[in-house]
């Protein structure tokens, strides 16, 4: 991971970032790719659930929710 890259769960609220890589097993990666989390795509952390997990993201103009443990597998670069 280069200096400017962080995992998706580390973004601040309303912070924008660009997806760099997706870790995890093959099926998980396919699932996220299908949902539009493609490397190069912009993603915003929109909200956090009342109990602190999961996260609400905006990607490709729609809302997607991921748990922090899954967001940790997505490497992004804040912009």
């Amino acid at each position, binding site marked *: 991971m280069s200096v400017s890259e962080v995992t998706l769960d580390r973004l601040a609220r309303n912070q924008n970032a660009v997806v760099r890589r997706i870790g995890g097993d093959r099926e998980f990666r396919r699932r996220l790719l299908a949902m539009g989390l493609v490397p190069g795509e912009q993603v915003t952390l929109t909200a956090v659930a009342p109990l602190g997990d*999961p996260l609400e993201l905006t990607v490709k103009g729609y809302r997607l929710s991921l748990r922090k443990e899954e967001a940790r597998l997505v490497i992004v670069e804040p912009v």
Partner: protein
Amino acid sequence: MTAVTLAAPGAALRYAPPIEAELDHLAATLGAVPALAERYPLRWLAVQLLEGDEQLLAEAESLGGPAVTAALAASRERLAPHYGEDLDVALVDQRYRFVHALAGQALTRPAAPPLTLSDRIDQVVTHRWLGIPIFLALMWVVFKITTDVTAPFVDWIDATLSGPVSGWVAALLSAAGLGGSWVEALLVDGVIAGVGGVLVFVPVLLALYFALALLEDSGYMARAAFVMDRLMHALGLHGKSFLPMIVGFGCSVPAIYATRTLDSRRDRILTGLLVPFMSCSARLPVYVLIAAIFFPAHAGLVIFALYLTGIAVAIVIGMLLRRTLFRKQPPAPFVLELPPYRLPTLRGVWRQMWERTAAFVRKATTIILATSIVVWLLLAVPVRGEGRFADTPVEQSAFAAVAGAAAPIFAPLGFGAWETSGALLTGFVAKEVVVSTLGQTYAVAAAEEEAVTPTTFGEDLLGIAGGLVSATGEALRALPGVVGITLEAPEEETAPEGLAAAVQAGFEASSGGHGALAALAFLVFVLLYTPCMTAVAAARHEFGSRWMWVSIVGQFVVAWLVALLVFQGGRLLGG
């Protein structure tokens, strides 16, 4: 995905040339396997295999043999210099680029999307402080709709079948010269009772599916999962598991069907196995009766403790199941779209209510009808004494013999008598029947049956229609209760004269003088043991026969062990 090319023939989706070349190769190889060519569009299948879909890969290799494996490996090798490990990313990326280009030509969108009504609703509904109270309030409404609002209709169906409909059948049989015969008893007490056992769930399920359709079609269900997931995930479940658990406090049957909102089969089954531990409302009359007899000063506390015990057992069993039967199935990743809010359509809501309820009636009738007839037969067959078929006292029937044979199983729990094991046996039909069976087995004269005044067919029809009108009125009056206002005082139910003393003496005798402990063990057993036949039928409908048996046997064993712990543990502590 190929749908794009099919729907818009003028704008075919083309991948980069090296990928297209491999797709052609693969499609040709796959096309040589008739079983695959018949089942799948070949180009689509080739894309899925290159992306690494494990399920399709296994299927293609088993049907196509080494040729498919070799062709796929060769294609991957030729593509490796271009895309390395990221072939799947490249495929998805190229698809999205195509969609994006197409949308760019057809749509103009503002650079910064405006704050929509949907966003505003979300700011309140998933708010840090308001999110959970709003969620709990909505769950309360769903619970009340499936219980209080439907109760008058359930009573109406019950009254119509046991009153006028049974009367008509009896009248028809009398006309055919079969009045008072065993045929009449079979039809009225076996068949009509069994059909009634199915029909009384129709209003409950219609109400549940109404609530579910509103929650799902409006888009709120995804938010409910979002709000509750942290808590439910800690228990190894999914945010959406919370709703079935809440509905379970009303009735396990709609609760098992409510697991349909969960996306992964693992989560559906795991939730469905835990739902029956939530103490359903049919078990309450049993608690009230026994607690009032043995713990008159602390009845409320005992009942409350039972509800908590059910929740605690569900948590423990959930942990055990995840470490045993579900060990190889890790929780599905939580990848959930939060769709924009939409107004549900009347048509969509009604279609879901109707189709899902009709499916229950079709699937559950067999088990329920068969069980009702078996129980009727057991009660009808005399094994001792002077009784004739369909006219024998309970204690001389085959039912008593079966209950007596099963009684030793419960001896270590302090209630190894045929009277109690018989009540538990009929509890499989419906939990609230435990109370009336205890009345029968302890041979307490039941309340005098009301003298039946003969009615005409027309009067019956009027009575049925009037019953429906008053049921609707009661349901409407129950509506304010949905938001927590109760207009009517709850009805007080008292045990029949003499039953208390008989039950107390029975428990004292079967437990060697530890009546109160045995009663507590009995209550815990009723809380936890095998769900009623309708819940079992629902489990088979939703999860298949194998999981139905896991539920039947598993819960019996759990109930037996916990009741043993209560009785023997209590005795050790000197209770």
